[in-house]
């Protein structure tokens, strides 16, 4: 490579490298170092694994952590089940304008901020909200019904927030399935279920994995939805990180939690890829 070419390449790559370095690598190195420093007295820190030990000895912390992981997997699975028929319809049935309209409809809620969308759910679900009012006026409930501040509300909000990110990669993957391959599946005697299980789902696998990874990461790292819809019962791990950094002002502890959350996402994504037999490369292409 000529020096001039090398310079051009370097200049072209520079913004990406700076972005990666300053906004992702550097803060994480900082957080890693921070998480390994124990507070031994006011403004006195030394190197040690105390912050991580604290996590394992205090049940509230690791239970919240496990709860976040399990609920996120549940939310991802629910989102997948809900998104699959929608994506199938958009990719295989809808044509032309209708297809564009449907994708736009999926996108529309994202034009308002996540906070406002979540507040919208609160208006619907709270004790004095729309659903409670309707249940009372139709005689299905005799007193106001509180539907906020439970796991159901948290899951509902998170699934709603993740749906679009599941639908788009799924629809992309399903669109590339040749119609005659599906017809051949029926022609050779396959039932709807057989065709779905042996032809459609295997074909859509890269899209399923891509969508699941995106939704899982968004869910694990979500903050506003569990706090607003779950209230005190939200118990999301991000709340613990927030509490350490902002309320307790214990940055090293918060940093340790942050690192643990990063490890959790990475391990589950890796396990997901292994289980589905998909490579990271094909999945990234689909996303």
């Amino acid at each position, binding site marked *: 490579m000529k020096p001039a070419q090398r310079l051009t390449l370097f200049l072209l790559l520079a913004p990406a490298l700076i972005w990666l370095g300053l906004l992702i690598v550097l803060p994480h190195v900082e957080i890693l170092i921070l998480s390994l420093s124990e507070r031994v007295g006011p403004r006195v820190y030394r190197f040690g694994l105390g912050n991580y030990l604290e996590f394992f000895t205090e049940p509230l912390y690791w239970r919240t952590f496990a709860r976040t992981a399990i609920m996120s997997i549940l939310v991802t699975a629910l989102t997948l089940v809900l998104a699959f028929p929608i994506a199938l319809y958009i990719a295989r049935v809808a044509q032309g304008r209708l297809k564009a309209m449907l994708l736009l409809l999926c996108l529309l809620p994202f034009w308002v901020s996540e906070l406002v969308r979540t507040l919208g759910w609160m208006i619907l679900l709270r004790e004095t909200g729309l659903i409670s009012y309707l249940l009372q006026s139709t005689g299905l409930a005799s007193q106001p019904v509180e539907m906020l501040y439970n796991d159901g509300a948290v899951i509902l909000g998170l699934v709603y927030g993740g749906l679009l990110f599941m639908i788009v990669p799924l629809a992309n993957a399903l669109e590339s399935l*040749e119609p*005659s*391959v599906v*017809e*051949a*599946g*029926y*022609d*050779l*005697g*396959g*039932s709807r279920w*057989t065709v779905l299980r*042996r*032809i459609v789902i*295997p*074909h859509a696998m890269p899209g399923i994995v891509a969508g699941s990874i995106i939704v899982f990461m968004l869910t694990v790292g979500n903050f506003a939805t569990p706090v607003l819809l779950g209230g005190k019962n939200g118990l999301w791990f991000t709340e613990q990180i927030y509490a350490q950094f902002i309320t307790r002002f214990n940055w090293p502890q918060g940093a340790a939690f942050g690192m643990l959350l990063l490890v959790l996402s990475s391990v589950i994504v890796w396990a997901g890829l292994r289980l589905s037999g998909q490579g990271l490369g094909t999945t990234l292409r689909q996303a």
Partner: protein
Amino acid sequence: MRTVPMASSSDLDLLNVTKRFGSHLAVNDVSFSVAPGEFFSILGPSGCGKTTLMRMIAGFEEPTSGDIRIRGTSMVGVPANRRPVNMVFQSLALFPMMSVGENVAYGLICRGVGRAEAERRAMLMLERVGLKGFAERRVTALSGGQRQRVAIARCLVLEPTLVLLDEPLGALDLKLREHMKIELKQLQATFNTTFVYITHDQSEALVMSDRIAVMNQGRFEQVGSPRELYHNPMTPFVASFVGETNRWAGEGGGEASGTAKVKLASGGVVQGMGAVSAKSVLCFVRPEAIALSSDVTSLQALPNRFEGRVAAVLFDGANSSLLIDTAGFDQPIRAVLPQAGPLAGIEVGAPIHVGWTADAMKVFAA
């Protein structure tokens, strides 16, 4: 509505089948029967309705009216996965997510055959189509001809009453296509399965079929053996679509000694067989029916004799032909040039005599 199964001597019967898409009439009142073990082709230009017809037999479309019967049992309302019919798709539509063996075993497993037994039968079928040892391969790792054979094996393993083939040779290159024509015909003969073959390529239909239906604008123009269609076309469409031919328009000039006399628009007068009384007519004569000679005496017995000049020599080995500019004809006459004859070395511009019998020329009302 399903009729009670009854004894039937044919594998497939279509009775007055019509299919409309909105105001468009895709298939217009088509009836035919296919005998067991027959290789039946439907030949027509693209957009003539042949694919719609095939999709109705396979069960992907329902006829607007009429009945489709397989061994006497009505198939109207029976879904595609319940019909004893299997299809080889134009794109072959092999399952890319499965291995070759799994592709062939798929249909058996759908029928509830155990996995081990299905694999054994798939293996045997692959052996019979000459793909022994290919079961573990990915379908993407096969050549065009091998993929073709997998697509056919996948159908034949189910022992269907009828195999439908939708232009399966379209995507192959010329050499392989010629080879597959023969191979398909041999496969059909060994398995003795009824084949219904759809194509726009008249040579595929002529080489492989026992009988051919020529389809145009949603209707069958003529059904017959390849020889019948070639030598005795019943309509001008069949005459021009099946095989090479010379075609001229003219007006009927009545009868002269048992033949139809036609005055061509470009001035020439010819004699042929067919529509005698029609005012406006079309005349067809095959290039191989035209006799060539360098002197007029050897053509003395022919009612149609003309003198022309060679406009072009189209050399193509055994299929070589001449284009001959002739007074009275608006287009040059195309004639087969035998490469073994005395005229094999003829050059452009040379004078030549052409002639043909009245029998060789078909005259139809336009």
